[in-house]
């Protein structure tokens, strides 16, 4: 725990500041990611950055992005799954912002102890994302490059918070429940009520969110994962 010594937690104020790096190159046509973004924007203690809006020509301001990382405790990539990975700007963001000496390597400790995870939506159905399905791998397996990036930067990696069958989530009435889970997840992360140790090995964050939030009594849950 080298990052922020939870200054806010003592005062009872939001303990963890969350940074949602949002990437969707066609927001006007988005059905799944848009309501998720709207919900996140409404939460206290959550900073949402629409990367395509801020850097429409991919001219990412490295200093500004690094400053943002320093100012937050939980980093989240929110994006649709594009070719089993992130949309291009998130890759550009990684290539530019995670510099040697900042994120890794000698003196590169800025991200140590922070929590990292992806919140993504996939077009394919859940059944496709396993060894027997047509995608052959689970979503967590497919996102392994990001997992390893997090490890190299000394961050705690949490499994993805994923929505499958995203193209039909609205018409099948599944989106509201997913947005509600998203809000619960972000709130719990912020307030330190998520059982992080228990979450780490899971295939997905939202496989059994209730269990991760079991200690709904915040006073009981809090100290456990602070040592994670």
């Amino acid at each position, binding site marked *: 725990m080298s990052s922020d010594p939870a200054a806010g937690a003592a005062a009872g104020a939001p303990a963890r500041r969350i940074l949602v790096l949002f990437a969707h190159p066609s927001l006007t046509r988005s059905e799944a990611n848009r309501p998720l973004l709207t919900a996140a924007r409404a939460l206290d203690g959550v900073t949402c950055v629409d990367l395509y809006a801020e850097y429409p*020509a991919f*001219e*990412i301001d*490295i200093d500004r992005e690094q400053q943002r990382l320093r100012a937050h405790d939980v980093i989240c990539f929110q994006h649709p799954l594009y070719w089993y990975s992130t949309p291009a700007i998130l890759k550009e963001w990684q*290539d*530019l912002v995670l*510099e*040697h000496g900042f994120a*890794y*390597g*000698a003196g590169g400790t800025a991200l140590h102890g922070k929590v990292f995870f992806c919140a993504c939506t996939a077009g394919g159905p859940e059944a496709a994302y396993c060894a027997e399905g047509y995608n052959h791998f689970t979503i967590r397996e497919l996102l392994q490059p990001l997992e390893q990036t997090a490890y*190299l930067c000394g961050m705690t990696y949490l499994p993805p918070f994923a929505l499958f069958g995203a193209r039909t989530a609205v018409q099948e009435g599944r989106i509201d429940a997913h947005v509600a889970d998203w809000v619960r997840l972000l709130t719990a992360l912020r307030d330190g009520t998520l059982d992080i140790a228990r979450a780490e090995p899971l295939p997905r964050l939202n496989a059994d969110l209730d269990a991760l939030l079991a200690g709904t009594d915040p006073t009981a849950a809090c100290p456990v994962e602070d040592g994670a």
Partner: protein
Amino acid sequence: MSGVLFQVFVYLCAAVVAVPVAKRLGLGSVLGYLIAGIAIGPVLGIVGAETEQLQHFAEFGVVLMLFLVGLELKPQLLWQMRARLLGLGGLQVLASAGAIAALGWLLLGHWQTAVAVGLLLALSSTAIVLQTLTEKGLMATDGGRAGFSVLLFQDVAVIPMLALIPVLAVPELSEIARHAAGEAGHGASGQAAGHGGPGAGAGLSLVDGLSGWAYAGVVLGAVAAVVLGGHFLTRPLFRFIASSRLRETFTAAALLLVVGIALLMTLVDLSPALGTFLAGVVLADSEFRHELESDIEPFKGLLLGLFFITVGAGIDFGVLFGQLFTVLALTVGVMAIKGGILFGLGRLFRLRAADHWLFTLSLAQAGEFGFVLLAFSTQNAVIPPELGKLLSLVIALSMLLTPVLFIGYDRLVLPRLRSAPDQPPDTIDEQGAVIIAGAGRFGQVVNRLLMAAGVRTVVLDHEAANVERMRQIGIRSFFGDASRPDLLQAAGIERAAAFVVAIDDRDRAVDLAEYLKREYPDLCIVARAFDVDHLYLLRTAGADVALREVFDTSLEAGAATLRAVGQHPFEVEKLKRAFRRHDLDTLNELYELWDHDLEFSKNRALLERVRARTAAELEITAADRSRLHDRTERGWTPPPKGYTKELDV
């Protein structure tokens, strides 16, 4: 001479005092004028006999108003309104005239007189209603549109009414009328010139004594002349006048157009208001529309104001107090009947809550055409003179009460409806969301991009040739000097979200930006700057975005050259980006030092001195280069060789 000056002075005084006070009190300008008229007429007795003549003159304001209304109304829109125009308008006139005539028959005995009274009271006041609707911004609502359809129909209906009235002559009255006709030859008002009416002796007419068919031919010819002339002749004419760049000539030409059409219509015994309305509709698509609008507007405003004052001044308090009860009862009765019928029609034509009430309350009065028909009827021995006096009071009083009904609509109806849930918003005609001033090479590209993105634009230019070129390729553009507030108003600036200043006059561009920021602080101003000097001036004036016109092109040219000499395109791209950012930083830095109270040229010398003192010119460039170098090297930086040893722990 001094007599005329004194009159003008009195009327202007009354208007200048009463109207702002009335507006401040939330009564609207129409009521202000009416009260001003009452004050200088019956109350103070400063003006008197001339009001009636003045009124005929001031009725030309209605003609101008209909021209302006026509300008706002594209032919397609008019066509869409046809069902309402005929259905709603026709039923309103028939039902109101019928109901009032029936009542009149009971009270008066003479059916002929009753029919005439019914007809003249069925008409509403175009002047008051349109003026008030426009002032309140209700013209584009459903209720406003419906009201307008009815008014337009009424205006047309006046013509057959004028033809009908002589037929209704009551034998007993004819004798008296023959006496009166000698002295009361009616005034210059065109509306009164009914076809073939025995009283229509005054003024010229091209159609006196023509047979029915020939008359129809002449009328059609006149209408065709207005439509075709408006479409084909006005453009070259206005373009020619515009190229002279004399504002007052253009204004004169605009007035000439309207007066000419009004005259033509009068000559063939048609309603001049209708003729100019038609001309307005024809010109609604023209590039000169906004310019015409802002030129005619002040004349219309003054004349209509004068008209309302004369209505107020013409109220005969002697008769009023002598028969106070009768006058009041008749006024309220007429308005109740008309209102009831309007309410029923509104339901029939499915007007929604707020619109339904607006429609009902706005048209319940009698109007200025009522005066005209009344005078005509008395001359033709259809209505006895005493009844005429009484009715004229009823008309005036009902007009006086109309602004009160509008206030009732605002204060009583609207608040109640607003709290009602699920009230869908009124459909307000969308206006250009972005106004572009200057349709030169710069403005054109901006406009094309915006249009490609589906953003509605209005383009203004003071070069008629530019406007014509734009119009040829189907771009909404209008002729006029964009730094004129009234033209901006006409272009819909109240509802614009952004404004692009792309005019080619440096100083005017700065003035325009300053004016816009002061009057419309929420409007986003994007301005074209010619150079840094200009850019700072624009920024100080309040432009939200100011861009140097050649900067990006020069940068692209530089980049193309670098690629041509063999540099890797992406390296060039990175350099270009870094250069632009660096340049922007410098620009912002220097702006802080820049003092807008000082003339820039002097100030630049000052800045130069600041620079010179810090370092020699060469050193600056060197420093700049290294800063730039840092920037291009940042990003995709490979980790140091051997860095993996640190990782493998």
